[in-house]
């Protein structure tokens, strides 16, 4: 017999399972395994979606923490019996998962609240998912050192290049960077998905005055420690810092339009049908409104009424640019390779 990866994995799994005999392979039928990012996200997911789901269905939802790349890999490894029932995904991975025929189709019959979600958000997931939450990538700055912040990406590039500011920008190791930074800035500077020269030329001009952040907390440290004066960050995370008492930080949605950074929800094929009930709760206007209040991000149900504080912070969907995720997915690896060779970090 020829040994290939499938045989090998099967043998490995069998060996592992031999030691786990007696344990259930999947959770019980009335238990759903849903996903969440850690920290405040997890609590918001539990309070806003898990609690009403459990109250209405009598089922139980367990929350798996992690990130979309890991969750998608878990589903890809076992598509016939996925270990997760509901995935929270970045938009580009949502497209990859949909194209891989790993996810179920979203319809109003299965999800009545889907009727109030803009159709373009479901279309962006190729009909196999939809966006339920969005933020905008823009300019976050330290008010103590930046009295007149750049109004847009072009001004940002010019003033950082001139040495007026030290800027903290996301490194390429951070998953969303190709879209919310590279695409958004390139688009603002006149580039296209097939021509990212404007972005790389701008980075070359700014390079002496840049530091790179590897994760959102890292960015905040750069600003708090005084390493950087401003940088490219998210609106919701900025407002979270403000609500925690950080009074020296502020955010600007670039005049060219920041990239709408969305969070998609998807249901893997062969996952429990209870997932539809849970996802419907995620799309419910009252639940989304509560979720937005906790996280300071916009939500996608058209019936949501924001609180006064949030209404002033959340940009209208029309003020943010919805990146062409499917097109970007086609060229993204080339962008990353070019970044590695020309920029490094």
């Amino acid at each position, binding site marked *: 017999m020829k040994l290939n990866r499938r045989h090998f994995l099967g043998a490995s799994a069998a060996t*592992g399972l031999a030691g786990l005999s007696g344990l259930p392979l999947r959770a019980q039928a009335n238990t759903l395994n849903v996903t969440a990012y850690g920290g405040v996200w997890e609590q918001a997911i539990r309070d806003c979606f898990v609690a009403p789901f459990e109250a209405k269905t009598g089922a139980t939802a367990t929350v798996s923490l992690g990130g979309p790349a890991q969750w998608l890999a878990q589903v890809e490894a076992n598509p016939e019996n996925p270990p997760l029932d509901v995935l929270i995904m970045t938009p580009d991975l949502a497209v990859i998962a949909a194209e891989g025929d790993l996810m179920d189709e979203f319809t109003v019959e299965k999800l009545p609240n889907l009727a109030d979600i803009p159709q373009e958000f479901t279309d962006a997931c190729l009909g196999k998912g939809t966006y339920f939450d969005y933020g905008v990538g823009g300019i976050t700055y330290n008010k103590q050192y930046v009295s007149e912040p750049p109004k847009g990406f072009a001004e940002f590039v010019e003033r950082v290049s001139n040495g007026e500011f030290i800027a903290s920008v996301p490194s390429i190791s951070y998953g969303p960077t190709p879209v919310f930074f590279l695409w958004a800035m390139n688009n603002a500077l006149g580039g296209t998905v097939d021509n990212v020269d404007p972005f790389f030329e701008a980075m070359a001009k700014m390079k002496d005055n840049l530091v790179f952040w590897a994760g959102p907390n890292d960015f905040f440290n750069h600003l708090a420690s*005084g390493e950087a004066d401003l940088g490219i960050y998210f609106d919701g995370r900025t407002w979270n810092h403000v609500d925690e008492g950080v009074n020296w930080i502020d955010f600007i949605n670039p005049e060219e339009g920041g990239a709408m950074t969305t969070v998609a929800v998807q249901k893997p094929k062969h996952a429990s049908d209870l997932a539809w009930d849970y996802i419907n709760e995620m799309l419910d206007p009252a639940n989304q409104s509560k979720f937005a209040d906790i996280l300071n991000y916009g939500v996608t149900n058209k019936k949501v009424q924001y609180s006064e504080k949030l209404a002033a912070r959340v940009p209208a969907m029309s003020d943010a640019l919805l990146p062409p995720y499917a097109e970007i997915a086609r060229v*993204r690896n080339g962008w990353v390779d070019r970044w590695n060779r020309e920029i490094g970090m």
Partner: protein
Amino acid sequence: MSLHAFAARHRRSLLLAPALIFLAVFFVMPLFDNSLRSFTAEEGGFTLARYAAFLTDRFYLGVIVETVVLSAAVAAISVVIAYPVAYVLVRKSGRFSGAIIFMLIAPLLTSIIMRTFGWQVLFARRGLVNQWLVQDLGLLDAPLRWLNTPGLAIAALVHVLVPFAVLSIASVLQGVDRRLEEGALMLGASRWRAFREVTLPLTMDGIGTGAILVFMIANGSFVTLVLLGGGFQTLPLLIYQQFNTTRDFALASTMSTILLVIAVGCLWLQLRLVRRQGV
């Protein structure tokens, strides 16, 4: 043969079995599967194309060289710092040896992320060090840009890894018969010559073990480099990127296998050194 007799005859193997099974299932098999992925073509079948592409690309060759050079530099600096500390610990510390060992190990009890953020806070443009140099001492007109420089990234790695080198050297130094050094001194050698020609050669095994241990950990280090940058592009950073950004798992597996080969090569080197020393 009765069960009792079988157990008695194979007692050693049976005691080893849980550890071996654990390692086989959770370490060897995943590693093997990972390597297999790098040799599997997209349409199935065996391929060396990824290795050929990787090892003939100047950029990726540069990444391999940078990974090895960075690790070697960290190992060399760590050993130079660790030897005097180990010497004091073994020969001079007396009743304070416990306290010194605790101080050495204590930093390892703190999260590496917290320690790395500490470097950021200390060496930021408006951080404590620049504040001393510019405002308090007036030694500089403008703050220095320490972060994202190779020097600071190496310093942070050395800070994390020096205890491993100290403990490796100290354990060997402990076993050196002091009468040999005393004999050299009695025969007219200076302290420096006695150290250079007697103590140092006898502790080469500890130096080698410490250096290789530090080298291998630095080889796979990720958090410090991703947070402090330093402009380094190393294999662990690119591997993470393939999983997190591009989802090119096959390329990640190729890089992982190359990193593994470098690590195994180091282990082989260590074994050769140890055998040559006759330890």
